[in-house]
């Protein structure tokens, strides 16, 4: 009799200890603010009731293995805390689309171009001819830059989430102001044409002012650098191209019934830019100079400290030309596809009308 009672008391002591250890482990994973004592007391009571029921069912006090089986069925402490604790997320579903958009914009459209156009050429100019290490350094810097930028954006959004969870729901919008459904046949927009005209005038004015005010492209370095004959050779064709581009919105406005024109004209313009760039690249290949676009002004020609600056600017222009060539190639492919789709639609519509007429 005394043996049984001592076994009972040691069993209840064991179960209490094991349950306490289990609850302590669950509590570890719960946030402090989440009414731990209240919840833990309730969970502990539930476990004690389960053990009691099992003991009644088996007709003897549970041993450690049997108690462990009950706790195991209940789940690992981390999992139980996850289910009991509040729903936690760094950035909620309301803010997540804006967060995703910002990350994409900053990483892909700001950071990567900055590294390709500015940091890369600077590293190359400072590498002293060691291109491989310059490229590796640029990639290393880009990698850490991407991580830091993503981290900062995430941190900012997490703070917004914590301070104002309902930001996403509060964004004002009007269903009546949603853009109309896109149809296959898009009419040329007069507003778009006017904007294009305005931008083209601005671009042409900028281009025409460049010879007199090189500061518009070189900034403060204009006092130290001047354009080479190669740039002078290609200046006039680029001005002519800008004048042609200026005519495009005018024709779109004057002939709105030419639905093919807004699709074909950018393709032709891209083709002209590509031809011009190819001539430029050919001319570059024939130029033996390390400074093909800009050289130092006569006043500072002998100053070695500005050689590096000239090198960086030349390299930046070279990389920019390569990027523009690549971008124009992609846009030409897209424009060709859009134009061909338009032609195909027109042809199929015309053949449809013809077949109806035959019937």
């Amino acid at each position, binding site marked *: 009799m005394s043996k049984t009672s001592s076994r009972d008391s040691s069993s209840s002591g064991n179960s209490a200890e094991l349950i306490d250890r289990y609850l302590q482990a669950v509590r570890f994973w719960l946030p402090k603010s989440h*009414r731990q004592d209240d*919840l833990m*007391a*309730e*969970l502990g*009571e*539930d476990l*004690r*009731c*389960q053990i009691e*029921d099992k003991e009644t069912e088996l007709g003897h006090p549970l041993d450690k293995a049997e108690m462990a089986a009950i706790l195991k069925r*209940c*789940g690992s402490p981390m*999992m*139980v805390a*996850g*289910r*009991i604790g509040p729903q936690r997320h760094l950035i909620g579903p309301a803010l997540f689309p804006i967060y995703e958009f910002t990350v994409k914009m900053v990483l892909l459209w700001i950071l990567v171009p900055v590294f390709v156009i500015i940091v890369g050429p600077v590293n190359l100019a400072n590498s002293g001819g060691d291109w491989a290490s310059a490229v590796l350094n640029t990639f290393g810097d880009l990698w850490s830059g991407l991580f830091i930028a993503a981290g900062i954006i995430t941190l900012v959004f997490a703070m917004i989430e914590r301070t104002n969870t309902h930001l996403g729901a509060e964004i004002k919008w009007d269903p009546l102001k949603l853009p109309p459904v896109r149809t296959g046949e898009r009419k040329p927009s007069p507003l778009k044409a006017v904007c294009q005209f305005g931008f083209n005038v601005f671009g042409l004015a900028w281009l025409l002012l460049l010879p007199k005010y090189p500061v518009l492209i070189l900034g403060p370095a204009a006092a130290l650098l001047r354009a080479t004959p190669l740039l002078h050779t290609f200046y006039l064709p680029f001005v002519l191209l800008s004048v042609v581009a200026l005519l495009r919105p005018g024709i779109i406005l004057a002939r709105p019934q030419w639905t093919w024109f807004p699709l074909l004209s950018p393709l032709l313009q891209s083709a002209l830019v590509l031809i011009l760039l190819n001539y430029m690249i050919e001319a570059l290949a024939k130029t033996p100079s390390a400074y093909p676009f800009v050289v130092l002004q006569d006043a500072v020609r002998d100053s070695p400290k500005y050689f590096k600056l000239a090198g960086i600017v030349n390299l930046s222009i070279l990389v920019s030309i390569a990027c523009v060539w690549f971008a124009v190639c992609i846009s030409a492919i897209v424009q060709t596809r859009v134009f061909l789709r338009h032609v195909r639609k027109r042809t199929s519509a015309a053949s449809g009308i013809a077949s109806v007429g035959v019937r």
Partner: protein
Amino acid sequence: MWYIVYVAYYMATGTASSEVFENLRMELRRGCLIVAVLAQLRCEQYGYTLRKALADDGLAIDEGTLYPLLRRLETQGLLASQWREEDKRNKRFYRLSAEGELILKQLLAEWESINASLNKILQEA
């Protein structure tokens, strides 16, 4: 060779479909569990007896789901709770509040309407 490909495909699609079923089943159960808990708490009970009663009626629910649900329903004013000593142990007893009774009535009416609609749809099919 083809046998292996077939078995791999079967396992992959089989696992995916069972996962889909499990997710849908959980979604279906979630709403029903709330109604079941509210209905059970028309009589005062504490957590463990409530869980046991639900399991006996075929709606087993684990601790990690039940206690946060009870908290939520209490915060919404549908339940009232009280810590009380029973068998020399402190237990938290829950019961349906007046507002909870009203909501339960509305939920049951909604459930019956959904059930009738579903039956109608299934008979039509």
